[in-house]
């Protein structure tokens, strides 16, 4: 089974690292969408099928927390798992993310195997 994945981050480098990490981890990706902020991410989510979202927190126009809140308030989007990848180190902020229903949190810098482990838990063994 292949997955449609959305990356939401204002850093092109981070999105390239995520894409590379997915390849290294052997995750079967059908379509890899990318957005530069939460608003662009929501636009993609409302017109495309997406199995999982990677999201940064600090972004221009609309940040990750606001995007997560809008996804969870939208019946069409609330079930899509979200993995936040951020430099955020605050327990309070991470706790807030979990309360909002974020599936996982990865603090930068991260290793590809950490990403793989999280995806195995979220997407199941389908991707090997």
């Amino acid at each position, binding site marked *: 089974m292949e997955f449609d994945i959305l990356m939401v981050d204002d850093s*092109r*480098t981070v999105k390239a690292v995520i894409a590379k990490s997915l390849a290294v981890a052997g995750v079967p990706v059908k379509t890899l969408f990318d957005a530069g902020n939460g608003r662009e991410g929501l636009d993609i989510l409302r017109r495309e099928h997406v199995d999982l979202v990677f999201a940064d927190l600090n972004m221009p126009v609309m940040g990750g927390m606001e995007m997560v809140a809008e996804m969870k308030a939208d019946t069409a989007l609330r079930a899509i798992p979200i993995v936040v990848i951020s430099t955020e180190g605050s327990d309070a902020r991470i706790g807030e993310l979990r309360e909002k229903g974020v599936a996982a949190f990865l603090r*930068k810098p991260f290793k590809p195997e950490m990403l793989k482990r999280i995806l195995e838990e979220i997407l199941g063994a389908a991707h090997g």
Partner: protein
Amino acid sequence: MDELQRSEIARVVPSILGQLAFLFADPAEPQDFAAADGPYLAGSLTFSGPSNGGMAAAMPEALALELAANLLGSETDDPKAIEFAHDALGEFLNVACGHVLTALHGPGPVFLLSAPHLFELTAPEAGALARKQGSFAFAVDGAPFLFQASFCGCCAEVPGEANA
């Protein structure tokens, strides 16, 4: 800048560079910056929370290219590494700042970081910045790399329009 801030920055910044991009930084002398070839790719950002301030980083273009290539798992002649070199520096700065703030304040407080502002410096400009209070000089395989931090306006201001 107090002694704790200095020691944590000196410890955390090289550690993050190593974890992120497998680049290993040693302490260097400020005069190494003016002596190296420019331009330097640079970035700065501001942070706000229990304390406010800014951080900046600057490195020769070739080192930024190596940073990008290592982040991407590619070679320095990879067009993507060339295209992403400056963005990679900004990302390193973002990650380093987050970890420095956690090292100084613990996991309790929430900080807001601005998006990195990216710009260039000539070698003389980098040399002048390296001599300012709050600057840390490192070398990666002989290439000079500058990190600068200011807290609550008590050090020299971090350069770049983000702090204008």
